[in-house]
């Protein structure tokens, strides 16, 4: 929402971001520590206790309830988070790296590279991302590694366009022109003057992309085209939930609430980061 001059909005943003850090951090730590804190084995079936409603007390109770095979939903959500967050996180790193390299090359050297890259970005923009991701994942096969590759291949243009714009804007700034004038070569200009200034916009885009890819993984898993069962992921947990929507609301409710809280947390953090270093900042000041 741009640069907010009013301190009130800024304070509110910072509170949301703080909430995001605490909540998102808690989810992150809980999924990493899943083997230590999960109450049950996420794959252990107890058919006798299938589709048990959530309860906080009683013998062998299940806080989030159990699924159609009697598996503990809380444990599955924790383990599913490991898969979903790892896939989204790795994709962000990979796409960010590709986008950074392509964006810097296009913005710094311009010319033919730039036109080719921008045309590629335009073409890719024309596809609905979900559909493109689904089509490629289905063609390549629905493994975790393929999902990461497809996520990265479809999301690098977002980084590339923004980085390219930043590099173009930075190249005309006095400190870069001055460095050039005193004889700094390409390598020095890039590493000393451009790259440090690209960290902020890259962080902002990466945080929003992380949030978006968690939602994307959830969507393709929900459609049955993501990580395949029995390995739990946040997406395929929702697919199970849909199959039992008439009998067991908790199978849909809990994974969805955890996804929504996690993604909100990351978006709150991203929003505050954008407020601090707006990507347009460089070109406007």
């Amino acid at each position, binding site marked *: 929402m741009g640069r907010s001059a009013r301190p009130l909005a800024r304070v509110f943003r910072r509170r949301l971001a703080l909430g995001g850090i605490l909540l998102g951090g808690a989810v992150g730590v809980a999924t990493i520590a899943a083997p230590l804190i999960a109450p049950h084995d996420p794959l252990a079936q107890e058919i006798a206790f299938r589709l048990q409603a959530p309860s906080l007390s009683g013998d062998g109770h299940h806080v989030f309830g159990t699924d159609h095979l009697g598996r503990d939903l809380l444990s599955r959500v924790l383990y599913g988070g490991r898969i979903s967050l790892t896939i989204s996180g790795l994709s962000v790193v990979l796409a960010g790296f590709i986008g950074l390299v392509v964006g810097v090359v296009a913005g710094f050297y311009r010319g033919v590279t730039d036109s080719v890259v921008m045309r590629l970005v335009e073409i890719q923009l024309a596809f*609905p991302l979900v559909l493109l991701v689904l089509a490629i994942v289905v063609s390549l096969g629905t493994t975790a590694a393929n999902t990461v590759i497809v996520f990265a291949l479809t999301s690098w243009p977002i980084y590339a366009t923004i980085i390219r714009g930043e590099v173009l804007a930075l190249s005309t700034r006095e400190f870069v022109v001055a460095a050039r004038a005193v004889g700094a070569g390409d390598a020095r200009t890039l590493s000393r003057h451009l790259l440090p200034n690209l960290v902020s916009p890259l962080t902002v885009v990466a945080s929003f992309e992380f949030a978006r890819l968690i939602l994307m993984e959830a969507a393709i898993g929900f459609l049955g085209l993501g990580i395949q069962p029995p390995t739990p992921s946040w997406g395929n947990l929702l697919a199970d939930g849909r199959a039992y929507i008439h009998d067991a609301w908790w199978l849909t409710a809990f994974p969805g609430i955890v996804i929504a809280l996690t993604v909100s947390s990351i978006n709150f953090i991203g929003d505050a980061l954008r407020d601090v270093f707006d990507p347009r900042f460089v070109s406007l000041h």
Partner: protein
Amino acid sequence: MKAGRLLRRLAESGLVLLGASVIVFMLVRLTPGDPATLLLGEIATPDAVRELRVALGLDRSLPVQYLKFLEHALAGDLGTSIRSQRPVLDMIVERIPATLELTGIAVLAAVLIGIPIGVLSSARRGTVLDEGSLLLSLLAQSIPGFWLGLMMISFFAVQLRVLPVAGRGTWAHLVMPTITLSLYVLGMIIRLTRAGMLDVLGQEYVSAARARGLPEFAVIFKHALMNALIPIVAVLGLQTGTLLGGAVVTEAVFQWPGIGGLAVVALTHRDYPVIQAIVLFSAASFVVINLLVDVAYRFVDPRLRTE
């Protein structure tokens, strides 16, 4: 818009579509293994596979195959569905109305809710109202739309039985799919409107309108919003892909008989000709919509005509 500029814009659109067709063509070639074997299944005889390879032109080189694909696509022949053996184009065309209905109403709902919220939050900048709208726009972009759809099914259709679980027909069928799909664009519309309004509200003609003693309501809605709307529409055009992607998931949740639902069925059964055609169709929709937005944009905004 001058004829030369229009021609250039058309050529650009054509280039994007051509590039999109290459990607769509390559999609099927990504599959490990031979497409002919894939189509016929594992039990096919080697003779049958060889015949189909020739029939599909798979024995030719890739560039030749692509040119054939392009030639057929331009003639409106997008192939035959492996599952239903029907021409893919027919299958898509008969599902366009359902998708248009859903996406149209969802965008309308998102605009009718999002623009007033964005306007209010820009006019009351820095107040609790503004904070509420920021929170709402962030949440709308964070909650998985399809999950909200499932929860609504569980509550309104399964528990209360006041809305139908799925399908298309009456107004009641539209309620939950519309809310689900609107969520994909609502947050963005709120953000865009607020930012666009803040830009415009700082302009001299707005101060001039105020100085002339016009009521604040008229200043905001007549002078400011009308000018802020133009960039909002332009950015919305670029979100066509987001909307169509949202339609894929939403239609799957509510078994809405549109193109998105068809896509999911085709993907699940690896019905490649249908997948290819839908991906190409959505890219074409994006290009056409943005071409129209671009032309309209230059028509509405005189500053861009002399550029």
